[in-house]
């Protein structure tokens, strides 16, 4: 967990976010490092999911929202007027809380992104699908039934399929919004192992309600409270010697 001196992958500066009049995110400042897993914790409604969706501008699809301040991806403001949101979302992928494969075949689920993004050349699609499924640790389980409906998979497999689908468009950052909250402990463990492996290639930001999960998988942890980032530090520090009393109260309160 070396502290890198290089430019952070994502740099957030004085970021504020509003749902109509509601001030959902207040003066956020943090840096997310390349090839690290950054966990965001905090009670429901504290703004961590809103922040996550601000990084790929999925909040744009909700009417009445407004963002102020700067989020830089590789040094470039993603809220600048000339930014192509569609291209941004290709670079910053997302895995959702509920496993949500399309009601199509396993193959078509993974192939969807490359197809619509025009990444398919010279019949390389089957190979891309295989690579993505392998990256998501699902290939061996599904290689003989790629044409079957994705909805026939169990929830853990479905979530890994969703990860494969995200990986298939070759993003740089993967946002995960409580990716294990609908999974049983075994499936959760598999996804966590997968995340550690994916972090070698991607930068991962994960929202979780599960303290142990944050402690197990992440390099850095941010604690959100009422729209503010109360504390942001290396995960070990947050969980053993937090600077803020509020952080400690939250962590210990949830642990018991």
């Amino acid at each position, binding site marked *: 967990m070396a502290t890198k001196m290089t430019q952070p992958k994502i740099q957030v500066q004085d970021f504020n976010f509003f749902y109509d009049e509601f001030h959902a995110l207040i003066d956020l400042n943090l840096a997310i490092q390349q090839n690290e897993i950054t966990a965001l914790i905090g009670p429901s409604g504290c703004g961590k999911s809103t922040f996550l969706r601000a990084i790929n501008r*999925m909040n744009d*699809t909700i009417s009445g929202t407004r963002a102020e301040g700067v989020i830089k991806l590789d040094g470039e403001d993603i809220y600048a007027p000339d930014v192509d949101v*569609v291209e941004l979302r290709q670079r910053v992928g997302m895995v959702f809380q509920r496993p949500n494969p399309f*009601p199509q075949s396993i193959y078509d689920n993974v192939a969807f992104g490359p197809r*619509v*993004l025009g990444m398919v050349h010279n019949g390389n699609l089957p190979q891309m699908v295989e690579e993505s499924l392998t990256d998501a640790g699902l290939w061996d389980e599904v290689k003989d039934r790629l044409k079957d409906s994705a*909805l026939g998979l169990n929830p853990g497999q479905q979530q890994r399929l969703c990860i494969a*689908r995200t990986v298939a468009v070759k993003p740089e950052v993967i946002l995960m919004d409580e990716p294990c909250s609908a999974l049983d402990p075994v499936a959760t463990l598999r996804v966590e192992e997968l995340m550690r492996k994916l972090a070698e290639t991607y930068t991962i930001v994960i929202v979780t309600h599960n303290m142990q999960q944050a402690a197990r998988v992440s390099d850095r942890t941010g604690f959100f409270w009422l729209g503010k980032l109360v504390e942001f530090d290396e995960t070990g520090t947050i969980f053993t010697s937090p600077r803020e009393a509020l952080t400690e109260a939250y962590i210990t309160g949830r642990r018991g």
Partner: protein
Amino acid sequence: MNTTKSTDARTNSHRRTLKRQQTNQIATVVITGVAGLVVLPIILVILYIFINGIGAISWEFLTAKPRNGMTEGGIMPALLGTLLLTFGTGIVCIPLAIGAAIYLAEYAGDNRLTRWVRLAIVNLAGIPSIVYGLFGLGMFVLFLNFGTSIVAGSLTLGIMTLPVVISTAEEAILAVPQEFRVVSQSLGATRWQTIRHQVLPHAIPGIITGVILGLSRAAGETAPILFTVAAFYLPDLPQSVFDQTMALPYHLYVIATQVPGMPLEIQYGTALVLLLLVLSLTLIATVIRTNMRRRRDW
């Protein structure tokens, strides 16, 4: 003493329960009966037309032209005309309606254009069909100079059919889970790619249902085609879309009211063919909808 009291209470409560159950049974019977009454007229109409008209139906009736002042022969020109008009109506109405439905379901914000579109649809649905006929006469037959023709009739019927098809298509599109759109866009798909690949494929059966229902209504309408396309009697079949044509509903109106000495059987036979045509369209729509509900797996 105490025991007696509690026994009394129990008996009373038992009696109350019985009474409630009786009321419940009566309500069930009455409500079922009323619902059954709704089915009665449609069955009677179909049976009545069927019994009176089936005798006239023959291969010749369907494939021959009317003869001898329409009192003999068949209804082929009118049947063909109605099929042509239904097809034409589809060509006019389907692109417009689906476009409008996609706009309303996927693009429409709360702005003036949206309000105007919705207001227009509500008002289109409320216009009496004879007014469509007059509009078609003024707009398509005279102003655009299409003459009394299949084009003018199809345009008139197409516009009349719009509201039904737009509403059902919009519902079908809105019924596709929001999640599909969110996921698709999170993968970098554009809005149109999302609609094209993750919304429309799931909405298509519902849209088709709406289209068929709209067309079946158009097939049976008389007033809109009265001044725009329908001919009293034509010796020849239409040669182009700028020709007039005979059509079943108008033909039925003509032989029922305008031709003296018309055999009743031919009238009922014509009505039966029209009824079967419309019913079979509705049936197809129902089958598609049922299939869609069964297949839907989200």
